[in-house]
């Protein structure tokens, strides 16, 4: 700790700034113009400021600050270190794009009053900032719960619709399940001396059993927020229910904040890391990612598809966390640093590309009022801005070079290639299988993304109303451009950012990739002769080659083009309905991965006058895990209702009996 904590004070001030913007919404709560065109752009400016501060803080030593607020003997403690700074960067940069988009997106007459929405939105942002700079369990939990509640109210913006209330309820329920896990986790980590600052927890010496308990409670708590299977059920409900900028914030930022929590507790607060924690996390991550991507492939609602794709990405991130734990536990610092860099990089990637995609679905939703993939199509002609920018996000999420998704995938696969060096013969046999599964997930992600993009933006419009769709406005374009630029920059210049991320691995693992990142253009994390990848050269040569081929063809041949109607297969009555639908595109996946789904099919009989074909794909976890638990809860609560008679004399009797019992106990 050196000098005055200026950065930390500025970050706190910016969080307060977001809060103030939220409150300013109440000056004219019903005016969309004031809130959308005045306050949201201001929020975006603060987002950029947070980004800049985070970049500064990444290379500076940790700062701490004690606020004169909080409990009598536990004042709020704040700390800004490299790990916090990375996630501040993520929050700030993503929020800047989403806020500027929201400025154009929120229109009058939709759900809650704009002023209220503005408060909830900025409270959500501020609480996420506080989560990453909190340095005691009390403040952390307060901020965590504020985050959960403000996002709950954002999800239920259109609370008049029953399915949205239901989605909000499920979200709240699982968020609180997670919060209980976190409370217990902090309870374990104070180690018997009842000190709830993170400082004290770092010093606490837990036995391996209690440390494991703390780790798994944290995994439960943060996994519920991040959407680890089987705690993922809220994601596909809440994301479609929320307005698109809120989905973008929740999926792009909030899920990553849960990853922050896991990293903070595992590598900073706990003094030991056992290798089998890593194995469990890795297994959970792999299953989550496979589950998410397979379910994404069969979705027919564009926002549900993206929600499942988020589950997949969270799985990949947890896989990275698991690898880091394993390498760290076996004292392989360089490899642990590599896995951690891949994890953090994937967090940043997911923040940018998933927000970009959620926002573009928002624009599509506004333009067409349709969320169902079966009723969209051909929007690249009507909405070129959204379509081309969404293409960037699509390719990024699909993990294709030279965009950002590929960089983290590449780093993770490189980390996997070193697992045979582990001094444990059983895991070094098992782990390369993980690489195989990761490769499968990555390839499936491309399948999902082709479906997503192709069905929405390409082909012919499936409904006639789509020909009236309007492209998004100027502010929305700026927001989308900001995020797309982030995807491209993260893809092309990974080395400078990875050099910045070194601070985190030095802080958490005591090792970094520092000396390996000499050339700004060449990514060679371990040694250049082992593996290297240069996105800049890759990108440039692709562009140059495409240009050469285009020019060559023009120069030596000609550019003559005739327009004609597409080939009708010799069949005169082709309609847009004959294109592959989202169901059709998902059909092979449904067939191959059938055991993962709970499917209900209604097939028409040959004698139906109006035949209907219906197939419904559902989650096994609902029926095998959640429904039985809900049944037990109902049974227990019906027992409790036996006690509640609703007559005052009975309650007086209860009080009397309680008093007698207490007296007997006291005497």
């Amino acid at each position: 700790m050196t000098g005055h904590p200026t950065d930390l004070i500025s970050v706190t001030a910016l969080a307060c700034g977001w809060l103030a913007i939220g409150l300013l919404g109440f000056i004219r709560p019903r005016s969309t113009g004031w809130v959308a065109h005045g306050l949201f752009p201001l929020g975006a400016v603060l987002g950029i400021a947070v980004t800049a501060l985070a970049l500064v803080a990444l290379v500076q030593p940790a700062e701490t600050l004690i606020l004169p607020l909080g409990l009598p003997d536990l004042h709020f403690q704040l700390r800004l270190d490299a790990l916090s700074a990375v996630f501040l960067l993520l929050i700030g940069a993503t929020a800047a794009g989403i806020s500027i988009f929201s400025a154009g997106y929120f229109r009058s007459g939709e759900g809650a009053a704009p002023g209220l929405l503005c408060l909830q939105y900025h409270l959500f942002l501020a609480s996420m900032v506080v989560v990453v700079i909190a340095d005691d369990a009390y403040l952390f939990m307060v901020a965590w719960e504020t985050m959960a509640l403000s996002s709950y109210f954002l999800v239920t913006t259109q609370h008049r619709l029953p399915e949205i209330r239901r989605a909000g309820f499920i979200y709240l329920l699982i968020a609180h399940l997670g919060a209980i896990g976190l409370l217990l986790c902090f309870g374990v980590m104070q180690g018997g001396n009842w000190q709830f600052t993170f400082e004290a927890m770092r010093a606490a010496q837990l036995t391996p059993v209690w440390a494991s308990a703390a780790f798994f409670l944290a995994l439960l708590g943060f996994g519920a927020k991040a959407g680890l299977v089987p705690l993922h059920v809220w994601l596909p409900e809440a994301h479609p229910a929320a307005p698109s900028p809120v989905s973008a914030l929740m999926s792009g930022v909030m899920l990553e904040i849960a990853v922050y929590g896991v990293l903070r507790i595992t590598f900073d607060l706990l003094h030991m890391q056992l290798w089998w924690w890593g194995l469990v996390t890795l297994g959970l991550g792999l299953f989550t990612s496979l589950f998410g991507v397979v379910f994404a492939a069969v979705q027919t609602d564009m926002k549900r598809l993206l929600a499942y794709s988020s589950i997949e990405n969270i799985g990949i991130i947890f896989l990275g966390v698991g690898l880091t734990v394993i390498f760290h536990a076996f004292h392989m610092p360089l490899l642990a640093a590599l896995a951690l860099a891949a994890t953090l990089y994937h967090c940043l990637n997911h923040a940018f590309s998933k927000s970009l995609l959620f926002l573009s679905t928002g624009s599509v939703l506004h333009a067409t009022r349709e969320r169902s993939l079966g009723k969209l199509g051909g929007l690249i002609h009507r909405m070129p801005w959204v379509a081309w920018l969404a293409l960037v996000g699509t390719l990024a999420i699909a993990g294709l070079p030279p965009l950002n998704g590929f960089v983290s995938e590449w780093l993770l696969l490189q980390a996997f290639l070193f697992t045979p060096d582990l001094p444990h013969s059983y895991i070094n046999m098992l782990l390369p299988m993980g690489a195989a599964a990761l490769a499968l997930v990555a390839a499936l992600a491309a399948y999902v993304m082709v479906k997503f993009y192709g069905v929405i933006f390409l082909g012919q419009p499936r409904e006639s109303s789509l020909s009236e769709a309007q492209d998004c406005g100027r502010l929305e374009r700026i927001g989308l451009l900001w995020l797309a630029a982030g995807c491209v920059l993260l893809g092309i210049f990974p080395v400078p950012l990875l050099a910045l991320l070194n601070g985190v691995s030095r802080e958490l693992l005591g090792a970094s990739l520092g000396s390996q990142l000499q050339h700004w253009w060449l990514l060679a994390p371990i040694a250049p002769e082992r593996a290297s990848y240069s996105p800049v050269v890759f990108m440039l040569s692709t562009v140059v080659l495409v240009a050469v081929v285009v020019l060559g063809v023009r120069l030596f041949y000609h550019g003559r083009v005739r327009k004609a109607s597409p080939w009708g297969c010799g069949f005169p009555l082709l309609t847009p309905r004959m294109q592959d639908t989202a169901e059709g595109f998902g059909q092979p996946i449904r067939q191959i991965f059938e055991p993962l789904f709970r499917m209900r099919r209604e097939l028409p009989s040959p004698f139906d006058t109006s035949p209907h074909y219906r197939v419904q794909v559902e989650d096994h976890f609902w029926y095998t895990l959640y429904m039985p638990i809900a049944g037990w809860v109902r049974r227990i609560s019906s027992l409790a209702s036996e006690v509640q008679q609703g007559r005052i004399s009975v309650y007086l009797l209860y009080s009397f009996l309680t008093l007698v019992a207490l007296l007997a106990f006291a005497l």
Partner: protein
Amino acid sequence: MNSVTLITQLTEVILAVVAAPLLMGWVNQCRAWLQNRRGPGVLQPYRQIRKLFHKDAVIAANASPLFRLVPYVQFAAMCLAAAIIPSLWTGLPFAVAADTIALVGLFATARVFLALAAMDIGTAFGSMGARREMLVGFLAEPALLMVFFTASLISHSTSLPTIVETLAQGRLAIYPSLAFAGVAFLMVLLAENARIPVDNPATHLELTMIHEATVLEYSARHLALIEWSVALKLFNYTCIGLALFFPWGLAADTHSLQDLLLAMPITGVKLLVAGFGLALIESLNTKMRIFRAPEFLTTAFLLAVLGLLVHLLLGS
């Protein structure tokens, strides 16, 4: 990077681009011989491409710019892949910029763009082709990656030239893990290049076609570029196979003209043999039903993973 290596790199790519249709023509000619036909001659793909370039392009009225961009991207991607794969030299400077994982990513990018272009017009065949192409892709891609992983674990590098150099030093020593990987790779090669038994490049039968359905709407120069890149893709895959499983005879030193003069005929002969083998496989097999393609590819994936396991078990 000095000028000599740069020239070598460019020569390698240009040679690949020029020679690729020849390999395609050779395979077709062999197939014709095996089926007791005279065949059109090995130069037929060149004539086909020239003819297509001279025609006027006909494009569907509702095609987006993406549709017109894709053939160029496709061709550029395959050229880029040729720059990474050692077919004559192992000292390729461009291989520093992209290793085997990036190579797999490059093939995936090309595939995704092709599928998107196929969906762009919005006909029933196009989107069906896109779906099937992606179906083949999502199983073949991890299998290919696992083949590369096995080779990478042997040579402690993911850079393709380094892998090839390490394997070539082994002097006819057979790695058991590579045997599994080799079979898996062959299956991937057949699937990814739309050959029998997964797909039939010579048919436009709607129920069975995969790759041809995706390019149904292309004509003239766009189709020429696509056909050329298909030939280049086959050339690339064959060269990967030769480099991984028959790595002998490549020139290591870019400065030595002697090595190069030796490497050229060796690579030529290897390609001829490989092309004949491919034609043999295609003539001896029948096309599978489309629903069996996933099983075929899953087998390839499992074989590749098995190869990885064998390497880890035996350490070789």
